[in-house]
């Protein structure tokens, strides 16, 4: 569960304050945040993930008001409760697919045992059709495979909220449908909230819950 109230943010050296509409997304629900370049959607995403600290207002993740968390608590929260799929799939280049998937658990001292992690990794990779690439270095994967591994990484530690940052902006219609369906299916299966942040208006009709940042907040 994630919810915000009266979030504002001002960049260093900027005179204009960004204000964001309140949002709420319960477990299993999906929310679309739509906005053109410069509308502040990346800023909002970073505020939701705790990568930026808001000037005012609050973000609540599973009843944790993140403004009051220390840096360390915030790092832990990100590692245990949040999963992020980035626009371009980035990985630790020197590690294999399996090892990249083990990172969230290692870095956040996650609760999965090595047996649980192994079984979950194989289960996810198998379902996403990249099980045969488990021992490959990530740079050897195709763009589509990278996208799917990226989804697996965002879900591996059973987060309660999954963010997808521009997951379809570089994809054609067919690939867009495939990736979004996969994301929706996997987050639903995990019982997590899904928040998709994009400027891609093709996704508009797909979500009943949506926030359009192009419409100024009242």
């Amino acid at each position, binding site marked *: 569960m994630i919810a915000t109230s009266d979030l504002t943010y001002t960049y260093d050296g900027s005179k204009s304050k960004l204000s964001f509409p309140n949002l709420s997304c319960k477990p299993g629900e999906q929310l679309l945040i739509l906005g053109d370049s410069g509308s502040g959607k990346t800023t909002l995403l970073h505020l939701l993930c705790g990568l930026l600290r808001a000037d005012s207002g609050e973000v609540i993740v599973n009843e944790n008001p993140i403004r009051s968390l220390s840096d360390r608590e915030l790092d832990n929260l990100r590692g245990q409760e949040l999963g992020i799929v*980035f626009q371009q799939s980035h990985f*630790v280049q020197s590690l294999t697919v399996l090892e990249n998937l083990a990172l969230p658990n290692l870095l956040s001292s996650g609760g999965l045992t090595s047996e649980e992690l192994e079984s979950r990794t194989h289960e996810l990779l198998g379902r996403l059709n990249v099980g045969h690439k488990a021992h490959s270095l990530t740079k050897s994967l195709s763009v589509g495979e990278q996208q799917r591994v990226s989804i697996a990484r965002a879900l591996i530690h059973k987060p309660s909220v999954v963010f997808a940052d521009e997951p379809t902006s570089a994809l054609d219609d067919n690939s867009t449908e495939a990736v979004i369906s996969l994301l929706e299916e996997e987050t639903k299966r995990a019982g997590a909230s899904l928040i998709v942040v994009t400027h891609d208006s093709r996704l508009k009709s797909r979500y009943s819950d949506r926030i359009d940042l192009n419409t100024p907040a009242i």
Partner: protein
Amino acid sequence: MKLFYIARRNLTSKPLQTALSAILLAFGVGMVSLMMISEKQLNDQFERNIKDIDIVLGAKGSPLQLILANVYHIDAPTGNISLREAEEVIKHPTIESGIKLAYGDNYRSFRIVGTEYSYPQHYGVEIASGELWVSPFEVTLGAEVAIKSGLAIGDKFFSSHGLTDESDVHDDLAFTVVGIFAPSGSVLDQLILTGIESVWGVHAGHEDETRSEEEIYNSREITAVLLKKRTPMAILMLPNLLRETNMQVALPAIEINRLNQQFGIGASTLRAIALLIMALSFASIFISVFENMQARRYELALMRTMGGTPGTLYKLLLLEGGLLSLGGVLLGLIISRIGIMVLATAIEDKFKYDISSLELLSSEIYLALGATFVGLLAAAIPAFKTLKLDISKTLSNE
């Protein structure tokens, strides 16, 4: 999977960059370590052989040559001295004792030294098998001589004139091996010892048969005498006493000190070069970690979004620097061992000395710890930037 594993994988994924930094450090550490081992082993050899020898009496010439030839047996002697005059010096009130040496022949480049029983006793060398020489032309072999020449008790051999040349063989008089010394780590390991009479016997002509005992005694020569002083006055009095003779005295401690000073200039230059290489390697580690950090900014930011704390990322980069330094240091110690084996072969061929011990010195442990620490420090400075990494900005700029 642990941070250590990620650090190792990050290093091995850039083999050229990693190898360059590690090899630079390895050469620096290897050179310093090689100098430490060779200096230590040569000094040990020098000190072991100088044991309680205060003064060396021999023919006039270079005092250093006199010491090198008669204490260490790595140079040609300055000439011969009269046995009668030498014995007068041994009887001088300021002298406690003297060990006479007479030599000029070799067997397969091992010196055959005519001497007294007090010579092996002086170095505390024990008999491993057989016995000490008794009759003329009986010899007792140094431990290394026995191993390398293959001679065994009861074997006979002919000596060659000179100290290394085997062409002029005295094939009329054979030496017989009657004993073999136990290894002692002293110069005696490399020598063939016999009575002085044997050395005179090899070079004696038929004229001895017609001369009186006194004439024969007056004509006898030896190469040198290793003296132990009774009082410090010996050092002051003997040079005056010998002014009108063909003899001189030299003090091993002073001559070796002088030799060390001469070698010291070269050694200092080499040490400075090695330290410069080490400094370059630390700069290389600094640049390597810094460039890695710059190139992997997004990767590091990504790890922060997965719950990695700034401290965890700092530790990761520090581990990479530490592993790189440790790898370089270990490689350096291996290089120095290979170096000492090569050097030992050359020194053994030329001087018959064994400096092949590969034992790790305590000074090398300090060198290894110091180099690893400085390597870590070189990585710690650029890695410090990860503590201030702005994740949002880094991810947005990608």
